[in-house]
Structure formats: C-alpha cells, structure tokens
C-alpha cells in the first residue's frame, strides 16, 4: 500500500506522462501483490488513469522543491511545474504579440531544416503568431515546409564561411543588422535557436520576456571555477575569477527586439575587438554571450529542459525534454517505448480487475 500511495500522490502532483512510465513497473508489481484487495486497487488505479481534474484551474500546479526557481535578482527560472500555461496564454492573447525565430542553416546543416521546421511549427508557441527567419547559403536545397496558418517563413540567403567558428561568430553580426533593418518592424520578441534541434514538447508563452537565457544542459551543476567561461583577460569575453552566475547556452536565447539588438551588438563588438587582438574566445560566441548576460542579467531563465543535449542521460530534475539537439542521421520519434508500456498497463487494469467505479 505504501508504494501505491506514494506513486499516486506523486502522479497527482506532477502528472506528466513521462513520470507515469517510471512508476509503471512498481505499480504493476504492487497491483499483482494486492490482487486479493480488488476494490481498493481499482480505485487507486482509476485515479491514475483519470487525469488530475483540477490541473487547469488549480492555482498551484506542482511546487518544485528540488531546483532553484528564482534567481537572486528575482528572475524566474522556468521549470516544468512552476507555471500554468493557461493563465499565461490568457494574459498574452490580449496583447497580440508577434514572435520571431532566427536560425542558421549553412552547408551541411540544411539536412536539419525539415525536422526543425516541422516540429517547431507544431510545438513552438502553438496558437500564436510566429515568423521564422531561416538564414541559409543554399536556398534551393530547402524542401517545401507546411506552415501552420498563423506562422510565416522567410528564407534569407547568407554568405558561407570556411570555418564553422566564423559562421558561429558572424551570427551575432547578421542578427543585429537584420534587427535594425527589418525585424524591429515585424516582431516584438525575437529568439535565436540552433537548427540542429527538434522540439518534442510545447514551448509556449512562458519564454516571452525582456531578456531570456537558457541554462546549459552540460553545466547546470558546475561550480564557477569549472564552468567554461573564458578566463584569459586579453579577451573581451573574459569573466574574472570569482564571478559568474550560470553558464548560458548560445543555442537558445532571445527576448524583446530592443534587448536582443543590444546583446548581439555588444557581443559582435567584442568579437571584432578580439579579432583585432588576435585572440578567439574559448567557446566563440557563447563566451561573449555569457559575458554579456553576467552584467546584463536576464529577466527570465529557461531551465535545461528547453535545450537538452541528447548525449546526456536524463536526470530526475529534468521532467520534460522540450527541445533536444539531434545528431546527424539520428532524428527519432519519441514515445514508442512509452506507448507500449501504457498499453500494457491499460490491458492489465481493465481486463484483470472488476469494473466498479468508486
């Protein structure tokens, strides 16, 4: 009984389907062992299968005690369970916001376009107006993409560079130039996302704020000294010893158009200064981004759920993987294993036990 009640309470508290997969084996074992006590088991299992009714109206969905949800400068860190998307959607529907997504697909990265665009169309700010700006050096190679009715796609040709580091660094320059000439008139908020990702869960209006950074999935536990900050003081991206809050990833950041413009301009100026001095930052544009976000602290942080590197094994604190990096030839469909386990559980419950509704 103890195992059962612990499972159910946890499910009611965080009712993501992924949690259910983890509890299914222990639940099956406990159900079999309690087969004599049919009625109570059915009551418990029906409560599992019926979704937590009050979720939409419950004002505190699930309190996360295991992770930091508020930075010392009072910027919320967005984890699954800290927010109620319906309340946020209601707040944003009135404002009629247009969001832009900037992404780069040069040379062989064009293979990721289809996967990214189809998943982003489905999961990125679904129901809101999104404009995708796709920068590529090879516009003819882009396949036809079915866009959602409220979204638009602009393909912008861009020059290729021989070194991938140069491509990475020039992104800042391109974004700031296009913001000034075009984006500021078309969108209110702008996000820069790497192309080699796929979305598996909804990313909604919880990301909309003045300046947003995502905590890197590789370094969310690291101490300051072991973070990959640039330490050489000759570089503009150098972060002095004893400073630094989090390590932000350059694969997903954004905010209001004005703030992103300031960010990209400052970072690119830093890059140019470094080039003059003959030095290149340790992690290229990511180091410059981290330097900027140290002294211009983001107003909202996204947890590593919002950009998870596939190579890492998933810890307990990551309840949902919303956006994952994909490696070449490894585009996968989620949830096959999960669906099988779900079907097994349903069969067990409905076929082997009495159907009295409590």
């Amino acid at each position: 009984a103890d195992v059962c009640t612990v499972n159910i309470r946890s499910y009611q508290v965080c009712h993501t389907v992924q949690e259910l997969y983890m509890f299914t084996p222990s639940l099956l074992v406990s159900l079999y062992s309690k087969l004599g006590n049919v009625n109570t088991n059915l009551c418990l299992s029906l409560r599992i299968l019926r979704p937590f009714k009050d979720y939409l109206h419950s004002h505190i969905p699930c309190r996360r005690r295991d992770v930091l949800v508020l930075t010392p400068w009072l910027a919320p860190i967005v984890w699954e369970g800290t927010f109620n998307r319906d309340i946020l959607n209601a707040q944003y529907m009135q404002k009629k916001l247009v969001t832009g997504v900037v992404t780069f697909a040069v040379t062989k990265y064009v293979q990721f376009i289809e996967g990214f665009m189809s998943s982003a169309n489905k999961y990125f700010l679904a129901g809101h107006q999104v404009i995708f700006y796709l920068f590529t050096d090879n516009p003819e190679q882009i396949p036809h993409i079915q866009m959602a009715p409220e979204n638009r796609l602009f393909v912008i040709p861009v020059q290729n560079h021989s070194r991938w580091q140069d491509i990475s660094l020039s992104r800042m320059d391109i974004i700031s130039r296009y913001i000034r000439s075009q984006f500021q008139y078309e969108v209110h908020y702008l996000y820069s996302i790497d192309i080699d990702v796929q979305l598996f869960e909804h990313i909604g209006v919880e990301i909309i704020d003045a300046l947003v950074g995502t905590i890197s999935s590789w370094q969310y536990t690291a101490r300051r000294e072991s973070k990959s900050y640039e330490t050489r003081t000759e570089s503009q991206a150098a972060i002095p010893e004893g400073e630094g809050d989090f390590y932000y990833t350059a694969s997903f950041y954004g905010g209001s158009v004005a703030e992103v413009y300031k960010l990209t301009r400052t970072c690119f100026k830093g890059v140019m200064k470094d080039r003059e001095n003959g030095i290149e930052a340790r992690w290229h544009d990511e180091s410059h981004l981290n330097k900027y976000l140290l002294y211009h602290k983001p107003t909202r942080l996204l947890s590593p759920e919002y950009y998870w590197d596939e190579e890492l094994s998933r810890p307990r604190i990551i309840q949902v993987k919303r956006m994952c990096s994909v490696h070449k030839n490894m585009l996968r469909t989620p949830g096959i294993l999960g669906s099988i386990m779900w079907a097994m559980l349903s069969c067990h419950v409905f076929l082997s036990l009495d159907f009295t509704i409590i």
Partner: protein
Amino acid sequence: MISRKVVGSLVCLFVVTAFIWITAGNGKVHYLPYYLPCPEIFSMKLQYTEEKLIQLFPRLFYQQPRVLAPKRRDVLTVTPWLAPIIWEGTFNAEILDSAYRPLNLTVGVTAFAIGKYTRFVGRFLESAEQHFMKGYRVNYYIFTDNPETIPTVQLQPGRRLVTVPIKKYPSWQEISMRRMEAINKHIAETSHGEVDYLFCLDIDMVFYNAWGPETLGDIVAALHPGYFNVPRSQFPYERRSSSAAHIPDGEGDFYYGGAVFGGLVKKVYEFTKTCHMTILTDKANGIMAAWQEESHLNRHFLSHKPSKVLSPEYLWDDRKPKPPEIHLIRFSTVDKDYKEIRD
C-alpha cells in the same frame, strides 16, 4: 362576462397596491446617493516620465546561485504566472540595490491619516526613514483632513513630506473606499510627473526591517497575513453575485491585503481607476463589499495578475504568532483599539 376569478384577482391587486402606497408612501423614502464618476479625471491623458529600466548590473562578489540548491523550499517563491513572491532569502539585496541605485528613482508613498489616525503618522514616518528604501529619493504623500496635526519629522536628504488635504467622510468604510478615488485624483494632478513608483500603504503600521528595491515592479501586491496558508475556499472574497467584486467558488489565486499595493505610477493610476469604478457600481446597486476596497482589489488582481507579489513579511499583523515561514517581519500593524479609533 368577466369571470369571478379575474375580478377577484384584480381586487386583490388593487388592495395590495393601495396598502403598499399607504404604508410606504407616507414614510420617508431613502434614495441611495449615486455619485457620478468624475469625467475630467478619468479621461485625462497623463504624461509620465519615461520608465527607467535596469541598464547594468555592476561587478559584485557574491555566492554563486546553484541550480540544485533552492533557497526557500518551504514556501512558494514563483506564482503560476511566473511572478516572483518576495520572501527573505530568495533575493540578494546587494545585487538589486547596485542595479537600481544608478537609475535615480523617486518612490512615492501614499498614506491616509484621517480623524484619529493622525496619531500614527509620527511613528510611521520615523520608521520609514530608518527602513524604507534607504538611499533613494522618497516623497511621502500624507492625505489628511487635519493638516495641523501632522508632526514635523526629521527627514533624510532627498526625501520630502507633502500633506494633501482631503475631505473626511462620515463612516470609516466610506473613508477606506474613497482611498482609491483620492489616490487616482492625486496621481492625475500631481504625482505622475514626480515619482516613478508609487506605494499605497496604511498609516497605522510601522517598519521594523529593511524594505528595499526588491519590491519595485509593474504591479505589486502583498499577501494578507491571515490567509497565506489556507485554501482558497476560506478566503473572505465577496461571494454575493450582485456585487462587482464577486469571486465565485473555486476561483482565486491568493488573498491580497488592501494595506499594501503599488507599482509603476501608470499602472497604479489604471487600477485605482478600475477599482473606483467597481466601487461606484456597487454603491449604485446599494451593496458594500465584505471587506470594502480590499475585496475590489482582490477582484481586480484576479483578472489582472500582479507582476510581483510580496510575502506577508511586508504586511504583517503583530497580533498573530510568528510562523516558521516568516523569517523577517518588515512592516506590521500597530496595536490599537478599533472601536475607539473608528468612532
């Protein structure tokens, strides 16, 4: 031929009407006074000073924030609409102070000291000088019907006291509800060009600990100390559906206290206007909300959620025993005899 039933019912109708007319017609008929909203105030287009946003966080040395080490596990620190709830321990006062100080902000405080409440002004101001927004420019706006009774308190440089004369209403409920109108009018006439942020506080309270820039936000509300740990069914919302402050069962996030609210001057102007309109609507319908303007405030904050919520540390009642969740009481009520003070 008219049937007997019809005749009978017509006679009854006539008798009842005559009866009512005789009994009630001779007595005094009470018409509820219906105050029309002031059109010139509500349609004024105000010129606000440009909103000052944080430009830079200066270099500081502080303990690294750790993702797996949340500071306060015992309380909710972020609302479901991602507004921070300010508890002691969730924020670093030094970081925020270093970011807000260069912006040269002016913070306004409104407080109503009417009738016998003027006796609290001295202690309120003295404690505010010690604890409220130290190092920032502050304008105290004390609304009173008796300007001579306001004591002169020694103020720090950059802070000033402005006495605003207002009319005294006969009942304390009326005084309480008219606060919204008075604040709104004052913003339209004076404060919109003078201050960046405005806090509307109760006068019968004292500051015990620091109240700093962590409280600054677009729309700021505080949790009522009596209701922060009870389920929403026990909140004293206005439950009568005929009131404009009505909140049905099953709705409501928190119970906010009417003694502390604030935010950007622009936002305070807008929501005091809305609250005053709903109060007038209720007055026209002859109903008064259960907790006067606090109920109207709660109704407003349900549909227009605050961008920052202050924990009960910022609005405490000293008569309550201190629970373990409250680490530091910053602003609390003064013990008083309600019957004597409210006449």
